[in-house]
């Protein structure tokens, strides 16, 4: 289950790229270059990267409204992603989807989702379709702590469990469903305890430890691929930024946010790789700088890209 040094460097690179993308997204928004809203996963990069590291390239994911990290970790082209974010014709969805609906089907990303828990039932169908076609792929479905309190969660985990579908459910518990703390929204200690209700394994991991996430999800992926059915993995993490652009953090303290920033998943993984002798400080800096440069190049690509033509406004509704 150990990853090669090369692979670990790649994971650090992905984490930096996500951070760079989202910091840039915030900046572009502040500059008035994008409209609409966005949901940033800054501080949660280990959850996206560690989970997807456990997949094969041909495996599939369903993402969430907070999905930039999932998309990048699944291998998205930053240019197309940034172009989508900026509403350009060259974006993944020709500018029709935006931040909340980026899909990159060729890389196996079946889409972010604007509805909390929207992807959870779809994962049942994807898992069912894969199983019926005897394809050896699995579907990994991300969702947040808020989604775990919807009816969709209950219906879907049960259905995936009774049919032993090749689904891995990854709950990114970032402590808040918009403003509602998990302490107020759950009467149980761990969201993964709910797995017992469906007769499937449930595991809670430190979601800021990329290797711990990888190991837990890998076990779930192997189990799903072997026909053992779904697993519920809970990655305990924290979003540093507000829920969306309208959030002024009235429901939590600055001290709490600062305490979590000290647990930065990127700094932690970087330090570990240096300690393991996989990287030097200079090499780590280079990885970081390359990630920020790639994002800058993506912005340049997006800014130079055309807006969708008004003549095409009605395209793509029906096949």
């Amino acid at each position: 289950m150990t990853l090669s040094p090369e692979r670990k460097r790649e994971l650090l690179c992905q984490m930096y790229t996500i951070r760079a993308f989202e910091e840039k997204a915030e900046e572009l928004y502040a500059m008035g270059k994008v409209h609409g809203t966005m949901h940033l996963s800054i501080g949660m990069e280990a959850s996206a990267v560690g989970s997807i590291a456990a997949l094969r390239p041909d495996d599939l994911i369903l993402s969430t409204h907070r999905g930039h990290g999932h998309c990048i970790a699944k291998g998205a082209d930053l240019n197309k992603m940034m172009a989508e974010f900026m509403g350009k014709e060259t974006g993944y969805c020709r500018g029709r989807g935006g931040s909340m609906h980026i899909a990159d089907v060729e890389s196996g990303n079946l889409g972010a989702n604007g509805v909390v828990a929207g992807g959870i039932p779809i994962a049942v169908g994807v898992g069912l379709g894969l199983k019926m076609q005897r394809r050896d792929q699995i579907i990994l479905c991300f969702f947040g702590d808020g989604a775990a309190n919807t009816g969709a969660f209950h219906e879907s985990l049960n259905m995936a469990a009774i049919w032993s579908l090749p689904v891995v459910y990854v709950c990114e518990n970032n402590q808040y469903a918009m403003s509602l703390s998990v302490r107020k929204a759950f009467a149980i200690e761990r969201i993964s305890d709910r797995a017992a209700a469906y007769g499937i394994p449930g595991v809670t991991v430190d979601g800021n430890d990329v290797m711990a996430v990888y190991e837990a999800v890998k076990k779930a992926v192997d189990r799903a691929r072997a026909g053992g059915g779904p697993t519920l993995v809970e990655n305990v993490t924290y979003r540093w930024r507000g829920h969306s652009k309208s959030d002024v953090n009235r429901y939590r303290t600055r001290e709490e946010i600062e305490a979590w920033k000290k647990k930065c998943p990127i700094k932690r993984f970087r330090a570990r790789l240096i300690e393991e002798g996989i990287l030097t400080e200079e090499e780590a800096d280079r990885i970081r700088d390359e990630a920020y440069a790639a994002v800058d190049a993506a912005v340049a690509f997006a800014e130079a890209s055309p807006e969708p033509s008004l003549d095409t406004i009605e395209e793509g509704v029906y096949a």
Partner: protein
Amino acid sequence: MRELSYAEAIREALRQEMQRDERVFIIGEDVGVYGGAFGVTLGLIEEFGEERVIDTPISELTIAGAITGAALVGMRPVGEIMFMDFITLASEQLVNQAAKIRFMFGGKEKVPFVLRTPAGSGTGAAAQHSQSLENWFVHIPGLKVVMPSTPYDAKGLLIASIRDDNPVIFVEHKLLYKVKGPVPEEPYTIPLGTAEVKREGRDLTIIATSIMVQRALQAAEQLAEEGIEVEVVDPRTLKPLDKETIIRSVIKTGRVLIVHEACKTGGFGGELAAVIAESEAFDYLDAPIVRLAGRDIPIPYNRTLEYHAVPQVENIVEAARRLAEGRV
């Protein structure tokens, strides 16, 4: 030609498509050994097995999610929602997900599924098992809405819906399940978006959907004895809508009565009336467009009240007569 009931015609379409295409499967509540609440899928589990005729727990939202997800990875699912009333529970996946995936993803994905569901009153099942909610889905870009009125149409439209690359809401009527009519044995399709003139006439046009087509045809028989020749047009698919056939008929007769079972306010009749009023047929109208639809009430339990909640043959006769005689 051989006769089949509406339910048998639907079953035959399912069977033939499942034989033809192994990607087609059935999923819903009690669709297996039970055969569905109205027996439509009876016997299919024996022929195709549990893998392709899948009984689900009572989880409508996830039935809709399951057909969406399976369609995304290359299957062609046919879901069933036991009563159209329960489609309320599945709406999130249908309206926010299935209908929009293609557009949101820049026209790159497709979601080919059919969701069959029985609508309509007349069974004494009262307010939560009798609704006709088709127009909600007509309102959603990305969905198609099909409503067959005869066994022949049911088979041809269902096969076309299964072969269509979009999510299709296929609305059946409970009281039609036992109605018999000629149905060819071989598979055939009726293209979605083609209305049919079910009866020709010169004096007025009745545009009716689902069971109201049958009632309109009975009304037309009676009116013919009085010398009033009614043309009955069945859109067959509400979305896409064959506006041309409708407009042509109205131009020919100059008078139009729209009949559907769903509540009048916000029902499909309003859309039909607007389509006619906006078209060149407006200049040919000799009378106001008239709608005859379900009352704006939940369906009552009591037999008499239930009967009078939605248009019956005698209501259609009366409304058509008034219109033909220029009393509107």
